[in-house]
């Protein structure tokens, strides 16, 4: 049986590290045979998830850490993002109402909508104060 390959990076909770996360995701997804379209989708979904953690879970506190782990098995990638901040369950969010938000000059909620659209499955759990977001996608 093929053994799963896992890769992990930890970044301080600052948006300046998002490009490094995208490069990390792109490199490994490419090495594991994902198409350019799949790589774009995974990269954006992980960027959005990290951004949410930095903004909402950690409120831009650079002393906090976000862990991103990629697990490749068979034709699938599972992305796990772990933080110890304020938890939020992406499945409790509704699709953003764009005309309404524009009128109220409200942003937000879009990242979760993208994550759900770009990945096959998005789940969340809290274990002993760790928020863990799982996102998976099969190679197209």
């Amino acid at each position, binding site marked *: 049986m093929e053994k799963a390959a896992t890769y992990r990076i930890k970044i301080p909770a600052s*948006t*300046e590290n*998002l*490009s*490094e996360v*995208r490069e990390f995701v792109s490199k490994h997804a490419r090495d594991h045979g994902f198409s350019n379209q799949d790589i*774009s989708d995974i*990269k*954006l979904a992980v*960027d*959005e998830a990290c*951004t949410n953690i*930095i*903004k909402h879970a950690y409120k831009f506190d650079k002393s906090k850490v976000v862990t991103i782990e990629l697990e490749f098995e068979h034709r699938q990638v599972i992305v796990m993002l772990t933080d110890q901040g304020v938890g939020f369950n992406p499945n409790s969010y509704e699709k*953003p109402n*764009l*005309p309404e*938000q*524009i*009128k109220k*000059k*409200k*942003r*937000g909620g*879009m*990242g979760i*909508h*993208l994550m759900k*659209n*770009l990945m096959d499955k998005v789940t969340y759990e809290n274990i002993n104060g760790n928020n863990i977001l799982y996102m998976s996608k099969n190679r197209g």
Partner: protein
Amino acid sequence: MKNFKIDHRTNNGLEVLDLHGELDAHTASQLEDALKQLISHKKSYIIVNFHQLEYIASAGLGVFMAYIEDVRSIGGDIKLTNMNDKVFNVFDLLGFPTLYDILEDEESAVNKFLKELS
């Protein structure tokens, strides 16, 4: 790290912002500043050219959501042009094409503005 950069120029008296590189939650504030500056100078006919933009995250789209009403309320518009497929796909997934003028190229946006202004 890929740089994000904005160049400002005019085309037929219309304001054009050329976006380069990667627009994410870190670089979105630069776009926000550029739009704020135009609006504060009552420049409301704005074309944003995405030709050199390689990547966009929702924070970038959020900037357009935050300022479109301000621009339209003073009689102008923000028209978006020259997006590559990947960038357009993000706008499309979030339902922007029904609320924003997204055009194939800058010339189409210029012609549309000039027609609207005549």
